[in-house]
């Protein structure tokens, strides 16, 4: 009886053995890092006399600071993509929120209030996305495509189609100072991303909410039939994504010190690419915060490397496009091997 059961159920997993499984696990954790190391190593190799500059601590800090905005977006986007959705409105929302922060600072000189307002507007937009998706039962692609236009228009409207200059001095700017005094010499924004990443990673892997996110991405009908409050969870997912987008918008303001309604066009594609390079699957159910962050770093180092080496822009675009395809193809291949092995 139990013998028979073994035959029935031991499919695939068992024969491979424990050692093999450990190896696969390790590979799963290290795999993404390897991609990052390959990129850095490659540029270090070909950089010639720019090598010193490229590998300098300062340059790493620069890249880390540059990646803050994409990374914040990727935290939320990972949740969305794991749940089988997508959010195309991120870039526009970042622009909108950066304008909101600058606009509030124009009215009242309170950076804290401005930050709260920026994040709140992002959260609200996320909430609207989520509500439309669940309320009208529309695909996220369309709802957020619509929001892409609306948020961009809103940003231009609020800013009267101009940039809004921030005040001369404002502690918000400190978030994105590459080499601050204190903070271990690393931009506070980077620390913030780190802390939030740990929070979201725990949220995704250790909480009931996280399980439900994966379940919805894996099989939405099943999740519903099992009593998961699919609509509520989805609204929450997009709201959280909006929260991070709002924060990203605030950081965008901190970085530029102006609220710019034309900033971050196409940012959503960068963020989606980061999540996917980091192993997330657009069909849902798969994705990790660590992976997404590394995906974001890979893209940032690629750009930085190309610019340091002095390659022309078109080459950068070609290479980044190719890397997206190659990274995902390798990941695919790795997973398929993993299944068979």
């Amino acid at each position, binding site marked *: 009886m139990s013998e028979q059961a073994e035959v029935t*159920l031991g499919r695939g997993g068992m024969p491979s053995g424990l050692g093999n499984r450990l190896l696969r696990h390790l590979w799963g954790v290290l795999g993404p890092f390897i991609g990052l190391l390959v990129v850095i190593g490659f540029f270090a190799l070909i950089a010639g006399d720019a090598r010193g500059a490229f590998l300098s601590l300062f340059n790493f800090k620069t890249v880390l600071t540059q990646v803050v905005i994409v990374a914040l977006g990727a935290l939320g986007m990972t949740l969305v993509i794991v749940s089988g959705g997508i959010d195309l409105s991120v870039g526009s929302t970042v622009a909108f929120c950066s304008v909101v922060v600058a606009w509030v600072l124009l009215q009242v000189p309170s950076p804290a209030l401005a930050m709260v307002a920026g994040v709140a507007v992002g959260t609200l937009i996320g909430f609207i996305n989520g509500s439309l998706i669940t309320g009208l039962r529309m695909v996220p692609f369309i709802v957020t495509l619509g929001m892409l236009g609306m948020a961009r228009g809103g940003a231009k409207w609020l800013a009267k189609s101009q940039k809004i200059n921030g005040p001369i001095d404002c502690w918000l700017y400190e978030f994105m100072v590459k080499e601050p005094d204190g903070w271990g010499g690393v931009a506070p924004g980077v620390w913030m991303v780190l802390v939030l990443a740990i929070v979201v990673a725990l949220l995704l892997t250790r909480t009931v909410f996280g399980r439900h996110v994966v379940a919805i991405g894996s099989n939405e009908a099943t999740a519903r039939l099992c009593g998961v409050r699919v609509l509520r969870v989805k609204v929450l997912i997009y709201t959280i994504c909006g929260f991070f987008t709002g924060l990203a918008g605030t950081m965008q303001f901190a970085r530029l010190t102006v609220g710019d309604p034309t900033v971050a066009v196409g940012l959503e594609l960068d963020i989606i690419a980061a999540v996917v390079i980091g192993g997330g699957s657009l069909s849902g159910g798969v994705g990790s915060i660590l992976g997404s962050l590394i995906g974001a770093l890979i893209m940032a180092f690629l750009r930085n490397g190309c610019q340091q080496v002095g390659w022309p822009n078109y080459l950068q675009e070609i290479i980044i496009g190719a890397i997206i395809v190659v990274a995902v193809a390798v990941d695919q291949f790795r997973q398929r091997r993993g299944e068979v092995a």
Partner: protein
Amino acid sequence: MNSAGVGMEQMEQTTPSPIGGEQAAILQMRGVRKAFGPTVALGGVDLEVARGEVHALIGENGAGKSTLMKILSGALQPDAGEIVLDGQPFRPRNPLEGRTGGIAMIYQELTLAPHLSVEENVMLGNERHRGGWVRRSEQRALVRAALRELDHDQLDPTMPVGRLGVGGQQVVEIARALVGRARVIVMDEPTSCLGRADTERLFQVIARLRRAGVSIIYISHFLEEVQAVGDRFTVLRDGKTVDHGVVAGTPLLRMVQSMVGRQLDEMFPRVPHQRGGVVLELEGLAGERLPRHVSLKLHKGEVLGIAGLIGAGRTEMLRTLFGLDPIRAGRVTAAAFSSSERRSPAEQLKAGIGLLSEDRKEEGLAVTMSIADNVALSDFSPYVRRGLVHAPSQERGVARWLRAMDVKAQNPWQPVAALSGGNQQKVALCRLLHHDVDVFLLDEPTRGIDVGSKVEIYRQIGEVAAQGKAVLFVSSYLPELFGVCDRIGVMCRGELREVREVQDWDETSIMTVATGQEKRS
């Protein structure tokens, strides 16, 4: 053990006695109505289930059983009618409310999240947590206990469910119903993917639950099972309650008659057919993992049955042979070709070989497409005029098979998704008949099909054989293999062990070979 003809006598309806005092009803559904557009799925159904009983719900395909149960679980909303659960009115607006109301449900179509582990699937929507944090050790203990009860404690709770076979997935699905504290457990065809041993184990679990005062609504097309576990039964036909009673003492014939609404002369109609030359030969066929070794010869005008336990690799044999899975060793020789390489399904179809998959939802039907397109999907050529498909002639060509298989549908251009499970299965079979293949590879073709329709399928198989075509018939339901096949082969652990004429087998000898005990003895 040959075609067990079921003679039917006319019976008068006996009004069953109301439930006795000590056996108070835990669930009452009265006048439940549900329509999907113009299709009336339920036209005023009554159902009464007592505490601690196993209540069998039976009926033809499309009778409305699943719909009724989905209303009970909150997955669907009724148009009218009332439900009383434990004396209280009960109107679940979503599955969560159904679940918190004490209804657990094993759905007919598997409902699992492939990326989640066994543990996560079992506990989905019912997680043990403290302030939102999952308590993993507690969950794991619960899941282990449930799996042990189903005699599957070797199943790794951390394994992603997507890696399990259909059988394993069904076990997970059942385990989910066990971990909750349900008052009523609905089982919609739970054994359609289970082997015999697992089925028996399930019956033991059902018996224990029943003793513990849990009520079970049991849906199955296997009336033997109904007789084995059921206390009372209710029969649905065309969305109405047509009969109910106590199982013990009710002859099978009466149940069949109430279900079908007419007499069934013969369960296994025989169409005489003549065995001819070899059309398909497998020599030492082996796939990536399964099968490990299959050699057989399939003749014209023959129905060759393949028996075996779930996981024996019968499905994989058909898939490998059909070119869906890679061939590792061995060769396939057909009238049209000889090959040890993988041949694509398209080439196989061209060579006159067609496969009916056991998993119709994933790999058998394009459910958003119309019935007519599904039937003609593998072969539009008869309807192509000057490069364009001619819809009226397609409709005519397809309707013939829909009628032959008695598909309940409004019109051929309805999407397949709107059909009941059994009728979808019939549409999938229509496709092979329509394509007019020479070799039918049928993987569990009567899974989820009602008794009356099964007879139709058996008749079609016989007629196909009479036309000189060959049928390879994989089934886990031994009576039908005995009733329909000319020869039966038995598979065990990826190997085809023995092929004999049907009269040389009996149930025990098949089970001996299938469990691999014949070698030891």
